[in-house]
């Protein structure tokens, strides 16, 4: 018996109707279950509506048809219990690293927020940079602040939209490993979106391949690699890994080619 779905997408269709151009169908008839405590990653060609789906789950966007559920309840309006990360760090430049991590706790009225923020910054290796402002941090450090900020509010679910996409490849590997190690602590449910197949396999329990626009679910590929996972560079040469990689790629390559 599989674990119950934490996030459920039911027949979601999204059509954008810009005022000055014709309608664009971004997503068509997407149904997807994200089991509690798992990491599910959506991969697909550019413009296939992956990010848009995250917005539906967070309540930022109302789908044109179908609906999303979290914990069995329909998403209706902006949720305040999701951790959201994207490629841009979203740091507030007028706040120090610690104050950025505190923000979510502050608006929730958590009393010992400074201590919590410090602890999370320590976990992402930024204990010496608590009082630094955004412009004093490297891109990798900013993204680590974003990781700390996201986990500090202990969100019920995590929505990650290519969170490491803007980093150089080495920093990206380090942050993927960091993210997983932090995630291992309490295993929140994660819906992740990426272009990077290595990243998808390294992090996920399930990889969902999307088609070209309008995005539909093409295939669902379980990643049966045991956790905790070895570092990405090590994992990448394991035969099971390469097996999964080639399965995903064989599904994805037609979509990518069509797109060109």
């Amino acid at each position, binding site marked *: 018996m599989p674990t119950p779905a934490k996030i459920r997408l039911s027949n979601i269709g999204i059509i954008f109707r810009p005022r000055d151009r014709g309608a664009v169908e971004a997503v068509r008839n997407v149904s997807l279950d994200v089991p509690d405590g798992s990491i599910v990653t959506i991969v697909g060609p550019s413009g296939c509506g992956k990010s848009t789906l995250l917005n539906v789950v967070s309540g930022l966007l109302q789908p044109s048809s179908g609906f999303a559920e979290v914990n069995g309840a329909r998403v209706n309006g902006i949720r305040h219990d999701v951790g959201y990360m994207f490629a841009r760090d*979203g740091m507030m430049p007028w706040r120090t690293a610690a104050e950025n991590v505190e923000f979510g706790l502050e608006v929730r009225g958590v009393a010992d927020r400074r201590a919590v923020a410090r602890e999370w910054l320590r976990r992402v290796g930024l204990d010496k940079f608590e009082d630094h402002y955004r412009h*004093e941090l490297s891109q*990798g450090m900013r993204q680590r602040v974003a990781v700390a900020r996201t986990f500090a509010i202990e969100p019920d679910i995590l929505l990650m939209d290519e969170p490491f996409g803007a980093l150089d490849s080495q920093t990206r590997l380090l942050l993927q490993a960091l993210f997983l190690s932090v995630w291992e602590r309490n295993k929140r449910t994660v819906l992740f979106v990426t272009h990077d197949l290595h990243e998808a396999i390294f992090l996920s329990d399930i990889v969902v391949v999307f088609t070209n626009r309008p995005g539909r679910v093409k295939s669902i590929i379980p990643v049966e690699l045991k956790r905790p996972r070895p570092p990405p560079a090590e994992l990448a040469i394991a035969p099971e890994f390469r097996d999964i990689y080639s399965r995903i790629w064989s599904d994805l390559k037609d979509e990518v080619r069509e797109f060109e």
Partner: protein
Amino acid sequence: MADSEAAQAEIPIQSAVADDNLRQRVLLARVAVIGTFLAVWQGAVSLGLIDSFWVSSPVLVSRELWQEIVSGDLIRNVGITVFEALIAFFISSALGIAAGLMLARSPFWDEVLAPLVLALNSLPRVALAPLIILWFGIGIVAKVVTAFTLVFFILLVNTLGGAKNVDTDILTIAQLMGASRRDILWKVTLPSALPWIFAGLNIGLTYALLGVIVAEILASNQGIGYVISSGAANFNTAAVFAGLVTLAVVAWLFSAVMRKVEARLLRWKPAVNSA
């Protein structure tokens, strides 16, 4: 990794080598420029090249200033003008910032009022001064109102611009983290708009002084503007120049204080120039 990243992040902006040395030379050159100007002015008058009746002279202006200091007129007039300008500045800024934030929250009213704001902001508002004096008399109120018409719109326009330019990533994240509309206003929109607001405050302070001085010149019996206009009316150019020098010092002090406050409140900005 942390160390190498830190090193990368903390490379100082430009070279700070011989900073003290440079500052000294700048200061010295400044004194030299002003000294030369005063010497040429005084020399031209002393040698009879130009008539001091028209341009006065540094000596005559100093003597006039000294007399005003001794008699207490200077401190009284400066006090009046500064008082009027600051009252106008604080009231207009507070209302201008509030109006800007309110319009930013209400796209409908922003749309409705945009042409009106643009028209009023483009109008050379000192042209309203005669009317304002007619309405409010020659007292402090007319000065404050004249300055208000200038400063209010500057702050309104700048605050609105800043409040509409909040990074959408930051807004999204703040909302998803559970920030209320109130939190967004105080913890996101306002700090994010602060550099814009300060740009407005800097100009606004200058314009507050301008508005007050114009009103004083048009109709008053006290203040620096009055000293200047009555000096000119009495062909006392030394008094006019003394008024101008006083005004320059007041304006300089205003902007110096403003820069200090700005450097403090915007210390999170990379490389705020506080020369």
